[in-house]
């Protein structure tokens, strides 16, 4: 943990009412995300499981749906997002459960920092891991489904979709981590709430891959952006209530 609290003694003595105990907001976010990334780079327990799971899921899909060229183009978007959602759920459960089981969640909450900064820090970590799965799937699906997914707009959709997924996912996972059957509860709680993201991302991807007109996929990307924004705001306001003890 590199979240250090700087205590400027000088300001606290001259202005006793205006104590600046807090680490700058973005420093908290960045150090928490950086901590997650470093822990993952050393342990690799989450990303490995997520990547392996998504490889298996895509293999199963490509066995189960032996399709002709046209049908492959129409289904590849759905396969992409279903796999991201399931693999992401796998990772999310791990990310928060690890914090709680090691007691580091309590330590984080004791730190004199904004609670929402903790939320965004954890969210960025989860976002990057989900994004890793998304981009692995771009390669994998291009090979296995023989559909070219190397399109910059599709990557934008993946970034937006993963952002929305990680935001809501972190919020819901920080609740389900306290429950009795948390591994079971997380997907049940998460999937209904995450649906606006999944629907709009799938629709946008499919419309893009099947090369429909711009006005067929652009509204879905706009909707995705709006949904992301709403969930980011919801996280800001609701996370405080979830973690307060």
């Amino acid at each position: 943990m590199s979240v250090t609290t700087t205590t400027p003694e000088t300001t606290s003595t001259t202005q006793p009412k205006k104590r600046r105990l807090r680490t700058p907001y973005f420093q908290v976010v960045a150090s928490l995300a950086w901590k997650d990334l470093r822990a993952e780079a050393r342990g690799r327990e989450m990303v490995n499981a997520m990547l392996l799971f998504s490889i298996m899921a895509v293999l199963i899909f490509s066995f189960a749906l032996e399709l002709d060229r046209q049908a492959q183009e129409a289904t590849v978007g759905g396969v992409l997002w279903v796999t991201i959602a399931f693999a992401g759920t796998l990772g999310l459960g791990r990310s928060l459960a690890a914090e709680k089981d090691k007691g580091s969640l309590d330590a984080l909450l004791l730190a004199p920092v904004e609670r929402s900064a903790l939320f965004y820090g954890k969210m960025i970590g989860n976002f990057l891991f989900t994004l890793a799965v998304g981009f692995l799937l771009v390669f994998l699906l291009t090979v296995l489904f023989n559909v070219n997914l190397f399109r910059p707009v599709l990557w934008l959709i993946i970034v937006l979709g993963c952002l929305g997924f990680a935001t809501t996912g972190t919020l819901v996972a920080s609740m389900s981590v306290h429950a009795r059957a948390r591994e079971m509860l997380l997907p049940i709680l998460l999937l209904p709430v995450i649906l606006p993201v999944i629907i709009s991302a799938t629709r946008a991807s499919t419309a893009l891959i099947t090369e429909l007109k711009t006005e067929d996929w652009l509204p879905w990307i706009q909707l995705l952006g709006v949904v992301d924004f709403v969930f980011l705001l919801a996280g800001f306001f609701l996370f405080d209530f979830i973690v307060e003890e």
Partner: protein
Amino acid sequence: MQYSESRTRNLRWLTYASIGLFIISFWMIFAYVGPERTQGEVQRIFYTHLGAFFASFVLFVVALIAGIQYLRTRHEKWDDLGLSAIELGLIFSLINIVTGAIWARPIWNTWWTWDPRLTTVAIMWLAYAAYLMLRAGIEDPNRRRRFAAVYSILAFSSVFLTIVIIRVRPDTIHPVVAGPTSTSEGIEGDFAMSDRITTTLLFTIFTYVVISITLLWYRIRLENRTKLIQARKMKLLLNA
């Protein structure tokens, strides 16, 4: 807990009113309004369908407000209200889904189709069912109330989606009865509203909203009773 005499009397009157309204709306659906020109007798189920939807919508809005109020005030009564509203909302939306399926069989020639509206309603139902799962999964009562309030706010996004989706998605086949629609082509089972249909529809919606409020009141009383019994049990166990 002892309720004041006047409140109990109000509740009793509300109950009589609900029963009376229900009987009148039943009469209106089956006798006052004639069969619809193209859909015939099947169309009569539409009133119940829409009434149950409005009731569940009102209840989920109540749950949203209760969730926000609980987080603000931390008073237990808001949590009771939220739980009661969501349980009843689940029942009314189930009525809504089942009557919709019965209506769809002759009109769309299928019980169920993955139309945007039907999909979002199913998801809405699942989201609120998950709310009950969340409550069952958390043991600490304070934390349970807090998480339930947060989740009832999150789950409302699915209600919002249900309301909005038939107005933005052009490929839905679900009729939009009230308000503007993006396109009218492709909608199966839409109908022109005669005066009698409109009157019956509005009356049925009003009836269902009144019924849902009455049931909500009873459900809150039931919750209070359960808590009272629980408290007495604890007291007895401590004394024994």
